[in-house]
């Protein structure tokens, strides 16, 4: 009897030990590889990168790459390409662009611009910029907007700045103070246009676009547009398209056009715009608008002819696929094929989907991405 009891104790102890054998050490998560399309070698583009934002605090910003030359989509490639990078790509990927042979990813919470080799995705350098938001390029220089300028007028909200980075040395060369919480930027001629949101000062949003002279790197003008500005894109005719997010209550989201010759607003489109991509003479636009008054989301797709400056009132998705897109979060157009890429962030806490539509708006393929797929950078073939 006693023997049985002692056995029971041993059995219990062994049980405790048995379940302790399960920790193997954290591994680098390999990419998910999915063939999605037929290979199109010899095109103008090698492929594109897609930056997934990931949720704040989860360290799940991730990088995907689609290779036109093989038709293969690889999700989550950064950690495998850079295994020694401590805590991987980082937290909340906010923007990505390719320029020259390099790839620049702006990682907002991680306070850095990650500079990689566009071909191998290997890290070249990390440029530290607090609360950095977006990046744009001109004449061998990168311009990065940041919320984290000095605290001046407003006691608790910093004014924003734009940092200039030399793309050869990857050093910050100059900084200029702009408006509150600057977002997207574009260069037209020798002027940099910056959309200031003032998001930290809600409901006293900023409502200006800063105009920066690139020679002196000084703000030469503030153009009054509308509250809570966000997206800012240049067309081929010297116009700037800038979006206002509104206040989510009674002031709706709108699209504005600035003439860079006069640096004044010349037109307003009364359509909600969350994001847009200008390719050729067409702006591909979607609006996902939430109203606190009704508790409802309204999602719309539209196109604007930027030549004639008219709203076309047609959906660029023509086969009904838009109905299965829960939360459009990014849009890009292949400059060579005019294929339209739209990302679906879904519930923001699970993998998103990337849709590829042909130029007539019919779905070609779709693929699973990382969490909150958002920003796309095309990589041109080097001749």
């Amino acid at each position, binding site marked *: *009897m006693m023997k*049985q*009891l002692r056995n*029971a104790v041993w*059995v*219990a102890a*062994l*049980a405790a*030990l*048995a*379940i*302790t*054998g*399960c*920790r193997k*050490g*954290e*591994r*680098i998560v*390999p990419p998910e590889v999915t063939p999605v399309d037929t290979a199109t070698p010899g095109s103008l583009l090698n492929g594109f990168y897609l930056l997934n934002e990931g949720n*704040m*605090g*989860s*360290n*799940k910003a991730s990088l995907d790459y689609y290779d036109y030359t093989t038709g293969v989509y690889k999700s989550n490639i950064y*950690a495998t390409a850079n*295994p*020694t*990078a*401590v*805590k991987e790509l*980082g*937290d*909340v990927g906010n923007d990505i662009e390719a320029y020259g042979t390099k790839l620049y990813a702006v*990682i907002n*919470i*991680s306070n*850095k611009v990650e500079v990689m080799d566009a071909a191998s995705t290997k890290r070249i350098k990390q440029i*530290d910029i607090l*609360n950095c938001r977006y990046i744009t390029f001109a004449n061998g220089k990168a311009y990065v907007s940041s919320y*984290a300028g000095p*605290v001046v007028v407003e006691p*608790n909200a*910093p004014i924003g700045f734009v940092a200039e980075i030399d793309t050869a040395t990857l050093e910050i060369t100059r900084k200029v103070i702009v408006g509150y919480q600057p977002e997207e930027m574009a260069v037209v001629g020798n002027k940099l246009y910056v959309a200031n949101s003032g*998001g*930290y000062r*809600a*409901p006293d949003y900023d409502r200006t676009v800063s105009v920066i002279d690139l020679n002196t790197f000084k703000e030469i003008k503030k153009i009054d547009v509308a509250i809570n500005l966000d997206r800012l894109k240049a067309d081929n005719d010297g116009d700037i398209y800038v979006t206002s*997010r509104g206040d*989510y209550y009674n002031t709706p989201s709108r699209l504005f056009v600035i003439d860079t010759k006069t640096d004044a607003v010349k037109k307003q489109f009364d359509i909600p715009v969350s994001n847009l991509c200008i390719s050729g003479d067409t702006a591909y636009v979607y609006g996902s*608008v*939430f109203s606190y008054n009704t*508790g409802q989301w309204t999602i719309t797709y539209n196109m604007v002819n930027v030549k004639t400056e008219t709203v076309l009132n047609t959906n660029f998705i023509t086969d009904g696929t838009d109905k299965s897109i829960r939360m459009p979060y990014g849009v890009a157009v292949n400059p060579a094929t005019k294929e339209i890429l739209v990302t679906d962030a*879904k519930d*923001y*806490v*699970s*993998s998103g989907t990337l849709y590829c539509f042909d130029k007539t708006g019919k779905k070609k393929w779709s693929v699973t991405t*990382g*969490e909150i797929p958002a920003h796309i950078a095309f990589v041109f073939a080097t001749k």
Partner: protein
Amino acid sequence: MMRFKTPAKAAGMLLLLLCGVVAAFAQQADSVTSKDLREVSVTAPRTAREVSPGQKMQAKELERLGSHSVADAIRFFAGLQVKDYGGIGGLKTVDIRSMGTNQVGVFYDGIQLGNAQNGQVDLGRFSLDNMEEIALYNGQKSNIFQPAKDFGSAGAIYLTSLKPKFAPGEKTHLRGTIKTGSFGLFNPSLLWQQKISSKVSASFSTEWINATGRYKFSYQKRDENGHLVYDTSAYRKNGDINAVRVEGGFNGLLNGGEWSTKVYYYQSERGLPGFIVNGVFGHVDRQWDQNIFVQSSFRKDITKRYSILLNGKYAYDYTRFLAPDTARLYIDNHYRQYEMYFSMAHQYALTNWWTIAASGDFQWNRLDADLTNFSYPTRYTTLTAAATNISFNRFSAQASLLGTFVNETVKKNASAPYQQKFTPAVFVSWQPTHSPDFRLRGFYKQIFRMPTFNDLYYTEIGNRFLKPEFATQYDVGFTWNKTFANSWLTQAGIETNAYYNEVNDKIVAVPGASMLSWQMENLGFVKIKGVDVKAKALWLIKKQVQFSTRLTYTYQRAQDFTDPSDSFYGDQIVYIPRHSGSLILGADYKQWEANYSFIYTGERYNSKENKLKNYVEPWYTSDLSLGKQFSYKHTRFHVTAQVNNLANQFYEVVISYPMPGRNYRFILTVNI
């Protein structure tokens, strides 16, 4: 150490082994004549008329465990998960049977601790210093003579503070304790109990917790071949806490009843260490809290058959949250919550086997906050409950029906609509054979939780269109207990429950109009299947060493069935392991006591999809403590030394919130 290819195999092995234990106990039972046939639950003796015994830990056990807070101790219960943000001041909430932290009711000395703002109670703030008992009930405490609120949550935790008990001739108890150790902890406390008359006693308890909260953490990554590619260590910063707790009250006996009244005050300032991600190894956010409540309870048998129970409470809770980093969104918000509560419960014994009860509660809550465009909500809750209990020798049952009526008003914006719900519960207990050692039990309960003030009204996050979140529970199980004479084994018991729960209209956060603001939605349907196993045995070795073993095992399959088109349809919900368990080994020898405790939490996922990228490794910690009691003249001393997380395992319970590695604690208690 044994290694298994998959954790599932290991767990399967564990189950097999557990069955072995049970078999061994069962064989044992046949060959021994048992003298004492009183029914005991696995964890504690049964109190009167409890159809479902719940899980309990008493002062002695809690003391030997040496846990810092209620949250640390409750991890040794089956069927729950503690969400722990790490460190002494870190938020620790409990999720019972995967139904979510908001479905849990926490009661302190019989009255629920409210948090209308976010519906969560931080169990890390309740020290074990003056705790007499922690009890956990699935469904509800199966006692029909209780306030309507006690019928109102899917699972309940009852914290009972020490009640003065005086031996003949005693008038005063005085106890001082000092705890110190890792995290720069300095934690003195004082307990004073005074006998005022033969029927009235007073008690006073106070505590100061001061800690830097500093601890080392480490992140490692390996490549596909298992080679270490990075290994980085840092110290957790901004985890300091400075808190004071003062509580005092009177307990009185009446002819056929009792009364009590108490005042509780808690004040703290703490750093919020925040998430650790690439490039961010520290935060500067801070939080100040103040909690005050006054509560009274009165119970009396008016006639032989009729009893009445009155409860009342007033509570004020203040929180200030400061995010002073000007590179980010500067936040300095102040929240003030007010609560008034009154309850009346009646019980009438129709026959000696049939009792009926009715209770009615009224509660008033208000939240003020200096947020832009804040709604300033006030909630009026009326709860009514009707319950009945039948109790025979071998069969007992309870049924209750709770009516909830919620009305809200706001100063600004629009208020949520009026809610009116009726929810039932049924509990049964049956002794199938003549032996009271073995009992079968079961319950069914439907309940809901109201959306919190934050869910409904938080500026830019709240959604006043939210519906209540429903939970339905089905549970069956058995308990087997036996006491033995003339044996090394003096007492053994096992309790096993299998359950199935459904959570409908689960309130979840989805990012809203901008990434800065999330939005609450009724978006979730979860089905939960689970098994809880609790086994306990007491041993007496060589008539001198008292040895106790306590083992829990929890299996939970909690799957998201919200929408078949979701990529996570059918996946295990976030942070819920399929397998978890605990083991406590305690030994008492003369003035010495030793304790070994082990916790295991199996693999789980930190996001909705059960994909490799969201995979979180299992974690398991071993804690050791050694204590000795001794007396000098009339003063009794008790010293304890502890090592926690003996193997120095670095792990996370919540993604990006690293937990402490090996840490130490020393406790000195002086009783006069």
